[in-house]
């Protein structure tokens, strides 16, 4: 028995005190021109970070020491749990994941304090104060309703173990990435609020906000992709997205964040869309908060909803109302004064970006409607229903098709005013290649399918138009290949980032279409020695054996895969029983490849030594996550652009 949990608990209270100072004094200082009060912002942010880090460290250390006198650890860990999952256990439950949330918020806060020294003092003070207010809310929430350091008497001999579903490498990194993204939108939010208060909503505001938003968006993209990949190989039925409320909760901020990134570009380059951009900045973070509410409050039943407690739901709802309500009120008060910015014609890059923004927002709205609809009907006394993938599929796809089309046109259209005939002429090759490539792909895959062809058209259209854009920029005018290289070097890195991210969307789209249309799923009853052939691959069941893991017992099957008599691989799917919670878990075995995944998992044992074996061939499924990764890399390139650094050097 040590005092570590008490130290952690105490430092959270201290952190609350610091957060209260951070959220009030610098804000008042900025209002009354008191330099000494504003100067408190950066040291306060740093000490808040240090205190929360101390608390976090105490929780991690207590997990590693198997301190089961702490209720949270007793319910989420076990002495036999492997090291890396003890770490993952820190954010495996409600209380710990809240602490992670606050920790991430502090990371962003310190990053802002460190990298934004060139900002005007009043603006920086306001930004940090707004982030301080958010941290007050979450610290209070944790301390009043969900303290991770609560003690448990008498101390149990061992813990209840981490949910076996979460005992997976993907789960170690998925929540931190996701939260970095979620919470990262608080920076754009704080910038927006500070600018609204200070009345400094202009192109420089957009330039400061852009890299922060892009980084947050990057983390969110990776976080969502990790979660989806985890569902694919860990849940054992080979799906990669279920339109579950918790998944939707992360998709909505992503959609709005994507709209925000594009809107910021217009505001920075052309000074337009200012009030729209600031609204999106508020909305992106509001959706993060709404997602937190949906996951934490238990208003919706979901596959991975956390333990529910009405007090928690009420607290978050009040907090959500105060934060978003105050921001919207501020918006309604200040936004009418910011002005319109540069005018633009009906056909222009501004218009395509605006249209895409609206589409993204409508998509986010549709997801929100589908997620909340059961709750709304219930609250109106109209009964209870569940909205399934049929709704989301039929609403989401038609919204994404025009979005992808505009994505191809937008970057080639000129600012302010573009000509349709000019665009059509420049894009004719892209359009032609798109049609041929889509039909050819369908033909190669064995069947030309209407819906699939539409999806493929979209994907290839993205490739074709990005290719056109790229070629127009590097096309040599007479001097041969050296000229191409010279011109390539002249393309701003941020622009390359955009192209890469758009290619990522196309790659993602190909993955989705190919899997949806051409996958083969087969469940077969197999005895030892029997085999089945799916898409030219012969799967032979070679029997099972029992083995013992660190905290589970498993039955491992052996399935040899061959193609045209030469062996491809041997797969080892497992059926695991985790000893403490006695939950059966299906661990699929996957042979990943560029053009297809071979996915084998074990169903139920039937009579004697026969098993139901699920054999899937999933074409191009890894492109789904590969596409997300490419999008994130595009974001990274965009942030590395020289102009953000140059800007800092000049102002510092």
């Amino acid at each position, binding site marked *: 028995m040590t005092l570590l949990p008490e130290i952690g608990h105490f430092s959270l209270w201290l952190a609350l005190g610091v957060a209260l100072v951070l959220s009030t004094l610098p804000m008042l200082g900025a209002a009354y021109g008191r330099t000494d009060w504003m100067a408190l912002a950066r040291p306060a942010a740093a000490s808040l970070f240090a205190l929360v880090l101390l608390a976090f460290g105490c929780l991690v250390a207590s997990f590693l020491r198997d301190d089961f006198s702490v209720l949270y650890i007793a319910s989420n860990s076990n002495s036999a749990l492997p090291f890396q999952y003890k770490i993952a256990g820190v954010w495996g439950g409600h209380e710990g994941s809240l602490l992670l949330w606050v920790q991430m918020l502090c990371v962003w806060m310190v990053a802002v304090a460190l990298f934004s020294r060139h900002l005007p003092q009043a603006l920086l003070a306001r930004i940090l104060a707004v982030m301080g207010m958010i941290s007050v809310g979450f610290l209070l929430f944790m301390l009043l309703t969900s303290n991770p350091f609560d003690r448990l008497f008498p101390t149990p001999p061992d813990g209840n173990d981490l949910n076996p579903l979460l005992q997976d490498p993907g789960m170690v990194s998925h929540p931190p990435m996701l939260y970095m993204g979620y919470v990262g939108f608080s920076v754009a939010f704080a910038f927006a609020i500070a600018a609204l208060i200070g009345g400094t909503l202009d192109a420089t505001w957009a330039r400061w906000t852009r890299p922060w938003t892009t980084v947050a968006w990057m983390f969110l993209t990776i976080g969502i992709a990790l979660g989806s990949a985890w569902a694919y190989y860990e849940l054992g039925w080979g799906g990669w997205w279920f339109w*579950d409320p918790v998944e939707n909760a992360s998709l909505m901020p992503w959609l709005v964040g994507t709209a925000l990134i594009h809107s910021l570009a217009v505001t920075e380059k052309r000074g337009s869309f200012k009030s729209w951009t600031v609204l999106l900045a508020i909305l992106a973070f509001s959706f993060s908060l709404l997602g937190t*509410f949906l996951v934490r409050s*238990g*208003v919706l039943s979901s596959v991975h909803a956390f333990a529910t407690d*009405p007090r928690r739901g009420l607290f978050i709802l009040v907090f959500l109302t105060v934060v978003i309500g105050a921001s919207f009120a501020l918006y309604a008060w200040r936004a009418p004064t910011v002005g319109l910015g540069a005018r633009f014609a009906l056909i222009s890059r501004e218009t395509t970006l605006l249209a895409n923004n609206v589409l993204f927002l409508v998509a986010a709205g549709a997801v929100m409607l589908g997620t909340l609809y059961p709750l709304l009907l219930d609250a109106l006394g109209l009964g209870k229903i569940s909205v399934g993938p049929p709704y989301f599929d039929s609403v989401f796809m038609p919204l994404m098709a025009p979005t992808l089309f505009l994505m191809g046109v937008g970057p080639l259209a000129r600012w302010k005013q573009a000509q349709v005939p000019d665009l059509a002429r420049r894009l004719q090759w892209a359009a032609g290649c798109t049609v041929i490539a889509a039909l050819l792909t369908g033909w190669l895959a064995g069947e030309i399918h209407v819906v699939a062809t539409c999806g493929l058209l979209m994907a290839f259209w993205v490739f074709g138009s990005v290719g056109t854009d790229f070629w127009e920029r590097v096309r040599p005018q007479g001097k041969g290949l050296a000229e191409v290289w010279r011109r390539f070097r002249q393309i701003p890195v941020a622009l390359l980032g955009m192209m890469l991210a758009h290619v990522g969307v196309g790659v993602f789209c190909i993955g989705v279409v190919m899997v949806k249309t051409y996958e083969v799923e087969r469940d077969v009853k197999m005895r030892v020695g029997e085999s089945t052939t799916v898409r030219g691959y012969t799967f032979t069941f070679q029997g099972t054996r029992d083995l013992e893991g660190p905290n589970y017992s498993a039955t491992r099957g052996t399935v040899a895969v061959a193609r045209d008599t030469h062996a491809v691989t041997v797969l080892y799917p497992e059926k695991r029983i985790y000893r403490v919670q006695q939950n059966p878990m299906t661990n699929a075995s996957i042979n990943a490849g560029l053009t297809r995944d071979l996915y084998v998992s074990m*169903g139920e044992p039937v009579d004697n030594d026969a098993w139901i074996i699920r054999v899937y061939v999933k074409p191009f499924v890894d492109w789904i996550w590969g596409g997300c990764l490419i999008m994130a890399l595009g974001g990274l390139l965009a942030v590395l652009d020289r102009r953000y650094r140059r800007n800092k050097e000049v102002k510092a």
Partner: protein
Amino acid sequence: MKKHLRFLIPLALLLVLVLFLGAGLQLDPREVPSPLIGKAAPGFALTRLDQPGTTVRRDDLLGKVWMLNVWASWCVACREEHPLLVAFSRDKLLPIYGLNYKDQRADGMQWLSRFGNPYDVSLFDSDGRVGIDFGVYGVPETFIIDKQGVVRFKQIGPVTPEVIRDKIEPLVRQLNG
């Protein structure tokens, strides 16, 4: 002034949303009183999921206590419930009839072969008409119907081990006398 009003739209929308969320907090997503309890189960004549040629009627089941479990292959919560139902069916306490709700026959069959089949018979309700007669709000739902064809119990959402142990098992024993 009129022009400024549109900047208030987000705030107004938020207030509406908050009202709903607040109301939602007061509700338990799993608890709905059923007007059917104590009344005769609605009549139906549906084909079997696995045999499109065979029809099952409510009156075929008179004289035994049986369970009706509403499920669908697109229903995520059903997957959560499913292993428990499979385990429960091994006890052979009572016949379990599935109502495959608003689903495709092939999808339903595939789902059963993939996750195991706890049902003695699954009835195929593709347009959801029978589900509506039973007042199905969300999938999954579970009903216990007695020998006279009267609904005695209803569970909204997945059944849990506690519900089986504390409610369903005692009720079935009592009904079977």
